[in-house]
């Protein structure tokens, strides 16, 4: 019983002590709070100074300080790193595939790009054609920032350089513009006509190689025929050159067509013209000429 009473006393004593010490701490804290300047007080006092009053007045004024330096010059538009068109020369045949690629970027990342469009009206196609970056429709890899488009040049398109403007828009509504050009040509180009050797013995046996290097608008596969007129040498008026790696042609499928022939014994010595004609599937034609010297 005595122990219980003692415990009760101890508890009361402890609680009283606790109460007294708590009040003292609170009082100390209050004293401390009133002893120091608060941020609110500092703000009030600072706002009351003449220089801050003036600055705030200027800040809130609609007639002071709105000059050209207040125009945001943050780069917000997407960027077009490059535009590539392949092939560079295309026939207006409506079937040769033209691949347009635009490498784009955006200050907020590629996910901010909302669309890439090309104006193909100059080649007789839609003025608002979308390029894609989904790994499909000729696009090599999805999400790499290289947008692609495959198209053809309309039959109605006239030869010459045609501009293709490309526009990139981002999700924040900004637009970047750039353009590339496409050379619309129907006729192939004869880059080089070579006869090896250029001086030949008329013995009916010495081999002569006629080689023609060609630049065809579009694909090389669309070269219909490369023919040489060897009538002056006593051969065919229309001798076909080959690009299959045989009959004097070194490599199949490259841009060089060749034919192997020899000059007849009866042919008198002299210089003989060799005319070459190249035709393609687009209806284009190119002519060239060289000479061969025949010795007896």
């Amino acid at each position, binding site marked *: 019983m005595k122990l219980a009473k003692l415990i009760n006393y101890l508890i009361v004593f402890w609680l009283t002590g606790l109460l007294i010490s708590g009040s003292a701490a609170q009082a100390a804290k209050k004293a401390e*709070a*009133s*002893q*120091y*300047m*608060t*941020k*609110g*007080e*500092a*703000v*009030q*006092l*600072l*706002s*009351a*100074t*003449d*220089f*801050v009053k003036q*600055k*705030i007045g200027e*800040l*809130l004024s*609609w*007639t002071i*300080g*709105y*000059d*050209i330096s*207040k*125009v*945001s*010059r*943050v780069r*917000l*538009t997407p960027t077009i790193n490059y535009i590539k068109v392949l092939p560079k020369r295309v026939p207006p045949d409506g079937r040769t595939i033209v691949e347009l690629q635009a490498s784009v970027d955006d200050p907020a990342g590629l996910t901010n790009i*909302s669309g890439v469009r090309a104006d193909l009206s100059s080649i007789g196609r839609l003025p*608002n054609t979308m390029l894609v970056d989904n790994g499909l429709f000729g696009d090599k890899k999805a999400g790499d920032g290289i947008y692609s488009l495959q198209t053809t040049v309309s039959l109605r398109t006239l030869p010459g350089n045609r501009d293709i403007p490309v*526009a990139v*828009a*981002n999700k*924040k*509504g*900004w*637009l*970047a*513009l750039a353009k590339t050009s496409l050379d619309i040509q129907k006729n192939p180009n004869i880059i080089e006509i070579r006869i090896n050797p250029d001086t030949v013995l008329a013995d009916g046996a010495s081999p002569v190689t006629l080689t023609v290097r060609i630049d065809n608008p579009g694909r090389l596969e669309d070269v219909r025929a490369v023919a040489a007129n060897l009538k002056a040498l006593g051969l065919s008026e229309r001798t076909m050159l080959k690009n299959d790696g045989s009959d004097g042609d070194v490599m199949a499928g490259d841009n060089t067509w060749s034919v192997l022939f020899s000059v007849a014994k009866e042919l008198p010595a002299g210089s003989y013209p060799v005319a070459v004609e190249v035709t393609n599937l687009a209806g284009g034609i190119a002519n060239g000429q060289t000479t061969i010297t025949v010795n007896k």
Partner: protein
Amino acid sequence: MKRYYLLILLLLLALPVSAELNETGINLFNPEIGARPLGMGGAFVGRADDLNSILYNPGGMAWARGISLSFRDMENITAVQAYPTGSGSSVGLAIATTKYTDIAFSGGLAHSSSSLLLLSYGTKLNFLPALYKNEALQQVGIGLTLKSLMGETLRRSGQSDRSGGGWDMDLGVLWKRSDWWWFGLSAQNLFGSQISWDVGTAEAIPSALRLGTSARIIGDIGSPIFKEGRELLIGGEIDFVSNSSALLRLGGELGINKTYFLRAGIMQQGRQGAVTTPLNLGCGYRSGEWGADLVIYREPLRDESQFYFSILYFPKEWVVSKKLEFEKPGVVIETAIEKISLADNITTYDENLEVVGRVRSGVEVYVNGLRADTAADNSFKVIIPMALGKNLVLVEARYEGEKKNWKYKVLRKAKVQLAEEKALKKELASAIGPEAKAALEGQAAEIEQSRQKVEELVTLGVIEVTPEAEFSVNASITRGELAAWVAKSAGMKLPKIDRDLYPDVKRNHPLAPFIKVAVDWNILRPFPDGNFHPDEPVSKEEGDWLFKRFGVKK
């Protein structure tokens, strides 16, 4: 070919002058009328940006629109009208009636009255697509004015009265080299025609070649000196007139809020071999589609001061093709933007501002110099980041070489969340009884006021508060913080710190420059122990002492 043209030009400038009108000094075919050009000392060939183009430089007619009525008195009235076709050109018609009395000349006094009818056409070069692709040529206007003198009656003392008429033509070019710098050329009375008198004689009409330039030195976006609400235009011109020596004209126009205009200019005038250089003074007023101009100038014929008054009306949408409902109506650049979400003087807390609008077909929109994407329905929507404080948003419409700017002012204030405000909201939600609520609402008003002040200081860059952090007004301020706040708000120049300031303020302490400047200015002092104690709270006594130094008492 060039030599041939030069020869023609020289011949025109050297045409002989007969002694009828010319001996009196009256030049009816070069009417210098219009209160605004006269106010600028007649130096208007290089400006030609209003209806007076028809009289000074028809090259400016490509952009002219409206009606004007100018008069000196009831007998000297000029009416001009210019109507845009909607395809980069305007047609103009003007009639000027003039009456001069008691003009002294070598033979006595002369009196003249007549009417001059002018028919003008000015166009941009858009009818030559190959040339018009060139951006510089998109800002070139060319024009011609056919002039017909009707019912000229000339009375001279001691001589029989004469009546006569004639016609001639002006050609003009105006090149807007940039937004602010223009050039003009006007060849007046190019054909060297004659005035035919009823007595069977004729006299040559004096020709003139006028070369001028104008520059908007101070003005809106695109001017060398940007000054909102003010515009200073200066113009200069040299005139080669066949019956006079070369004349110089210099003038300027000061615009205030695009409403009030003050003009002054010196205008050399030649008469009977003598050249005078009087000063012209003018003023103008514009309100919406209306305007009025007044000038006091020296009338050379009688060498006396005269007033000229002009009333102008220039409706924004006034296009022939639109009225005729052509398939593709032309776009008037002033109305190229059909609607826009912006209004002037916007206050926002948002980091980004969304600008939404719609333009007319074919119009390109640029916001802050960047091209906005327009959808198929001609609408556009862009998002612009807003800096803290003042922002200027420039919206530009471009259409076939024409462009127009609009600017909008935006104030972005810093958004600050006070810790006390948040706590008070909770207390208010759980408050019981009207008295407790009223007391808390009183506190809320005080906190709101504090928040506004904090926001202002954060917007000014005095206080730095990160967006996610709360600001407590009841927290005590440290000595370092106070040093920074005061130095920033007072705009004190911060020193470079290349050594430790105190044992507890090393050279790389983020507040070191502020502490240094605060101590240098004797705003805060280090402790006797040699330390500054930047993280110690500022005592009330110390704070009060500091602000007293700035004239602020609690």
